[in-house]
């Protein structure tokens, strides 16, 4: 299997060199790298804002920054992390790299569009960075009107234009994925042989194409209101600020599932590989992704329980929000059942996957607290909410992203990362994360509101714990950055399938050739043929040449 790689075998990384060959590439694997550079940059920019927030909250007084600066810090942290890191992270990096490989295609359906998506993403990012450099924006990432449309005198228009532009990058990525998955599957790759990673990205793409245009037009209307005086959300004219909230959350709640569904796809791959077991309940996991995508469009009102929406609407939204727990729980139970009697190994990607399951369970269950009308009124806009969504977005989505990056790193680069360091980093991140965010559940339950830079002294102990945890978390994030870059040059050569994993992406060389496969594959059995089917080849006519 892991035959030695010839010295000068041509693959997508060495087929040509130079900046131009990267900036004008239409190879989905190289575009994934472009995205990797972009999202890593924005991750650390967003992390910088988070660092300043946590430093300010070390003491009850406002001694590091003023209230205005603090408002800008949490706004820029949210905007950067959500729109420029979390949303593109797994789909645009791992999805881009892996979907054609996993379904046995040479590329995505529209390679030039794929490159255009990256440029659109970067252009949107530049607008947002310009807004940050010009003095920032202080509305919160939610841009609630009329504060954002009339009263705020910070750079709202520039920021929302940046988000508007970046939205089109998401739309085009989603479009590309949907068309690719529909039309470019290899012979024998039926829908129910697709890896669950692909199903998860299919569900995510549906949200991309149906949700993103709504936030685009909503933010465009806010920008038009600021720039040209249109009055759609203006209460002075009889306009309805609640309409903005409805439109905003119609996208932004599904956007949470944009951030988590691809991660769930990653976890399905990791759990099966490191348990050496066929996944438990394939159909249920596949359809639970679609169910989350569809239900996700029907729950936005749970963000508005205290905004003055009708109590009957709130009751319906509460009920629908609880329904999302069902497909989410299906996934967690099925992953757990997959672990049962598996021969589990604890490589770094698996540590991330196990961390994901635990943290996602906490994040998901606390989501049920928030979906409950009475409890939500108590903890609304407190640190309980902050802790809840960080358990989903950082504890789950970022864990899955890092797990995926480690798992497919040998495929992307042809080299292995240093395993002991990687395990250490995974443990540091898990511990640091919990120390950062678990105290915030308590803080929120005790009544500490979000978005304030000063707080009563009795909350200090828990805040100090949180800030201490954040510094540990920072170490955990810098470590992979360092050793992954190191491994590009010094890592052990991986071979085509270092994990003995199943899936078409492991049936080609590492790194893959530009066209992905020397011989286009034909698929003869279902996904995750671990165990009994371990020895069966995917190629009925024998292995391709050059392997």
């Amino acid at each position, binding site marked *: 299997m892991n035959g030695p790689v010839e010295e000068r075998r041509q693959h997508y990384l060495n087929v040509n060199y130079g900046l131009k060959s990267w900036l004008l590439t239409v190879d989905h694997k190289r575009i994934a790298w472009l995205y990797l550079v972009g999202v890593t940059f924005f991750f650390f920019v967003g992390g910088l804002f988070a660092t300043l927030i946590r430093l300010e909250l070390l003491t009850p007084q406002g001694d590091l920054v003023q209230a205005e600066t603090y408002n800008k810090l949490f706004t820029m942290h949210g905007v950067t992390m959500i729109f420029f890191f979390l949303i593109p992270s797994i789909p645009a990096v791992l999805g881009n790299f892996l979907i054609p490989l996993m379904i046995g295609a040479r590329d995505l359906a529209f390679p030039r569009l794929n490159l255009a998506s990256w440029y659109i993403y970067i252009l949107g990012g530049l607008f947002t960075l310009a807004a940050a450099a010009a003095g920032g924006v202080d509305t919160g990432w939610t841009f609630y009107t009329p504060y954002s449309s009339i009263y705020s005198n910070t750079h709202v228009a520039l920021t929302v234009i940046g988000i508007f532009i970046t939205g089109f990058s998401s739309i085009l990525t989603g*479009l590309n994925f949907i068309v690719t998955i529909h039309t470019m599957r290899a012979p024998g790759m039926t829908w129910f042989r697709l890896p669950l990673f692909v199903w998860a990205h299919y569900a995510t793409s549906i949200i991309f194409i149906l949700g993103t245009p*709504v936030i685009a037009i909503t933010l465009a209307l806010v920008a038009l209101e600021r720039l040209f005086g249109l009055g759609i959300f*203006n209460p002075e004219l*009889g306009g309805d600020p609640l309409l903005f909230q409805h439109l905003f959350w119609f996208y932004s709640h599904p956007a949470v599932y944009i951030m988590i569904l691809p991660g769930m796809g990653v976890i399905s791959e990791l759990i099966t590989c490191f348990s050496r077991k066929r996944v438990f309940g394939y159909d249920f996991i596949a359809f639970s992704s679609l169910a989350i995508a569809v239900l996700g469009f029907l729950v936005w009102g749970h963000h508005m329980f205290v905004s003055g929406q009708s109590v009957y609407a709130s009751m319906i939204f509460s009920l629908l929000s609880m329904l999302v727990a069902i497909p989410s729980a299906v996934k967690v139970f099925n992953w757990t059942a997959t672990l049962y009697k598996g021969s589990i190994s604890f490589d770094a990607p698996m540590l991330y996957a196990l961390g994901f399951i635990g943290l996602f369970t906490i994040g998901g269950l606390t989501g049920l607290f928030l979906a409950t009308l009475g409890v939500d009124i108590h903890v609304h806009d407190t640190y309980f909410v902050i802790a809840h969504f960080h358990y989903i977005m950082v504890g789950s989505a970022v864990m899955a992203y890092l797990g995926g990056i480690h798992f497919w790193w040998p495929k992307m680069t042809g080299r292995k990362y240093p395993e002991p360091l990687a395990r250490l980093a995974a443990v540091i991140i898990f511990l640091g994360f919990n120390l950062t965010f678990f105290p915030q559940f308590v803080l929120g339950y005790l009544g500490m509101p979000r978005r304030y830079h000063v707080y009563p002294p009795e909350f200090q102990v828990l805040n100090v714990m949180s800030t201490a945890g954040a510094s540990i978390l920072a170490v955990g994030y810098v470590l992979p950055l360092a050793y992954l870059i190191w491994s590009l040059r010094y890592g052990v050569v991986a071979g085509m399938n270092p994990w003995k994993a199943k899936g078409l992406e492991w049936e080609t060389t590492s790194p893959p050739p530009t066209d992905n496969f020397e011989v286009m594959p034909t698929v003869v059995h279902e996904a995750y043929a671990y165990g009994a089917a371990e020895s069966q080849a995917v190629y009925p006519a024998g292995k391709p040449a050059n392997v």
Partner: protein
Amino acid sequence: MSDSSIVHAHQFDDAEQQHEASWLGMWVFLATEVMFFGGMFLGYTIYRSTYPEAFADASNHLDIWLGTINTAVLIGSSFTMALAVRSAQLGARKPLVRFLILTLVLGALFLGIKFTEYYAKIEEHLVPGSNFSYAGPLGRAAQIFFSFYFAMTGMHALHMIIGLALLTALIVKAGRGRFSSVYNTPVELVGLYWHFVDIVWIFLFPLLYLVGRHLQ
């Protein structure tokens, strides 16, 4: 795409797969567009039910004749676009170019009339903002109506402008004989887009121009 009409891009197995992918891609894109305009249609619906008198009254300030003529112009352009697609499928180069140019001209005419209307609205101080003035007690909600008028027709006009750019590119390619009865996907796709933009107007026209007709 080279002169030999059945060549397909490297990532596809064959021309049929390429056609299927392009076709699906366009429909997915149009689904996105429906949601994009849908946000504004939703807002319009809510405010119209909140302020029915103001919306009816303000709608009478729109030029019904120019709106009707423009509707006819746009439907005409969809007709010529359909003929262009048909010509492309038959591999008839000259009619293809002719119908594409005709579509372009009608599209430009639509925009010309639209901008005439915009100009009149500026003259009448009906553009929302500090210069807005509207006689009578319905002025505040009327400003919301005109906000929707400009946002919706403006987004529609933007789509028309993009459509004109696409048509221009098609005309150049068609003139060079790039399309044949075997390969004409771009004409079909731009046709779909053009019809979509047309349909958006078919909804906008009654919602904006005809709401208040019964009051006159």
